[in-house]
């Protein structure tokens, strides 16, 4: 799967590319509007990560060019601006998502996965990994043929870990992902342990071999292989 990263901050672009490559995405990194316009003209991408403030112009022009050419590449805007106006403009121009800096790479990865799932026409909403089958349309999880009855938070947590499989996901990232808008209001991560415990219990009851590892209080890692 091909991803174009349009980000003028090299260090950030590289981190994103490196993180995503572990997920068998092919990443291309460009740092200015001009090159970005050339790339989108010649190639199709599954998802484009677009920084709005580029050295040679506004990233939204890239988005506009893309939509003017009737291209259906998924676009996630990554921006330092989080005003409601900025969001609305971006989404009205046809962006699929809007992520404000600073963000967790695991969150970005989850959003990319969601955008790609949504844009895929072939109705393959089934994600199979680590011995689990997740139907992202119906929001159900099976271990082999055995369904596991998860709550909304548990399902979100599992999907988050699955999309970021084989990588350590920090507890901050999980907390923010699970609390949505209320992110960052609490410094207490104990509630993650509770969710994690219940999730593991339910999956193990359905016959799963536990592959979620706590990594020294830093975060969690789901080992798929």
């Amino acid at each position, binding site marked *: 799967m091909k991803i174009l990263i349009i980000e003028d901050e090299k260090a950030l672009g590289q981190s994103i590319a490196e993180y995503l490559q572990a997920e068998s995405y092919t990443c291309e990194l460009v740092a200015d509007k001009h090159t970005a316009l050339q790339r989108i003209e010649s190639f199709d991408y599954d998802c484009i990560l677009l920084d709005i403030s580029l050295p040679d112009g506004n990233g939204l022009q890239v988005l506009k060019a893309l939509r003017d050419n009737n291209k259906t590449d998924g676009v996630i805007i990554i921006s330092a601006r989080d005003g409601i106006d900025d969001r609305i403009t971006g989404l009205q121009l046809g962006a699929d998502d809007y992520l404000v800096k600073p963000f967790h*790479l695991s969150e970005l990865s989850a959003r990319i996965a969601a955008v790609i799932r949504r844009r895929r026409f072939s109705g393959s909403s089934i994600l199979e990994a680590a011995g689990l089958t997740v139907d992202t349309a119906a929001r159900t999880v099976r271990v082999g043929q055995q369904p596991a009855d998860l709550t909304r938070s548990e399902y979100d947590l599992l999907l988050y870990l699955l999309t970021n499989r084989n990588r350590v996901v*920090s507890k901050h990232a999980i907390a923010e992902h699970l609390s949505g808008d209320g992110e*960052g209001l609490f410094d*207490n991560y104990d509630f993650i342990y509770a969710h994690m415990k219940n999730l593991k219990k339910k999956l193990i009851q359905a016959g799963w071999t536990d592959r979620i590892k706590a*990594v020294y209080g830093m975060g969690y890692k789901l080992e798929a292989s």
Partner: protein
Amino acid sequence: MKLLNKTLQYYFWLSIVLLMVAIPVFYFVLQRIVISNIDASLVASKTELIPRLRVMEIHPGTPQPRLEDGVTLEKAPPQPGGDSLYTTDKYRLLTSYLVINQETYRLQIKSSLADHQRLIGSIIILQSVLLILLLSGLLLINQSLARRIWKPFYQTLRKLRAYKVDDPGPLQLAPSGITEFAELNTAVEQLAERSRQSYLSQKEFAENASHELRTPLAVFQGKLEMLMQTSPLSEQQATLITELADASHRMARLNKGLLLLTRIQNGQFPETAEVSVRDTAKHLLAQYEPQIAQQQLRVEEDWLDELKVTMSPNLLEVLLGNLLSNAIRHNVAEGKLVVKGANGTLTISNTGQPYPLPEERIFQRFAKNSKDAESMGLGLEIVRKICDLYGFEVKYRWENTLHSFQVIMKS
């Protein structure tokens, strides 16, 4: 004391002193003039009488000529000296000794003072009335004139009092024809404009700084996550990374809070809708359920009033979110959280530290009140700014071991 009254006070005392001094002085001067007048007319009468009396000398035996009222002629022992003038009870008396046919006569001419006294009295009264009228008229004119002249000053004062440095436009004062006031207005306008400019640039700086910080923060956070993926990873390294991640998380949150504050101050939440405080609070409480369960808090809700307000739904969520999460975060295990809505007032109370918070400091930026080193110190400032924006009043109370925050939304 008002400047007007101060000057008027001096005028008033001056008038009183003037009246007190002027009226007696006037009285005495008038009396002297009248008496010297009477004296002159007495002497004149005498001079007129003397030729008639001389007749008695030329024709001895002639009876005394008839004399007018108030003139007496009596024989008297010889007296040295000339005429004398003095005042008796009601008269002015001229006594003169004449020698007629070797006999000494005392001639007395008297003139009644009563009429003159009455005249003086009337003149004095008239004069006093006139003076009093004149003075009070002057005072009145002075006062109304001063009031009109000082009007621009009071207008300036009123505008200055209402002026806030975060008002959208510059301070504009009414022009004044009086040089001093015009100069004052110019100076005040310049001062206000300078403060406004420095406020604006400071605000802009805060906003730009917060925005500029975001990219390096994103780089930092990204690299940390990449660091987490490295292997082998020792526990020591993992602990270091976790601490860095905590710090980075706090930086990101502070940054977000600062930007939110600037945005509220900039009035960048213009969209309003009628929203229910009750529904929003219920929604947030459901969202915070994991944290509430974690601390085993007992939540009590009491809604006598749904509290419908017209404001930005986003800001209402921020307002309630900050108050509720504070009430959860600073609570004790198995504590209590009370949410009450009644009479246009929302009250959020919680158990917590067993002593009241310093009321004057808690709404200030970065005022930390707990051992919780991670409290970001911006939450209540944001609450207050939102309340300011919509004219709500927010109050803190410590009652029956409960910390209460009251937001008076409608009165």
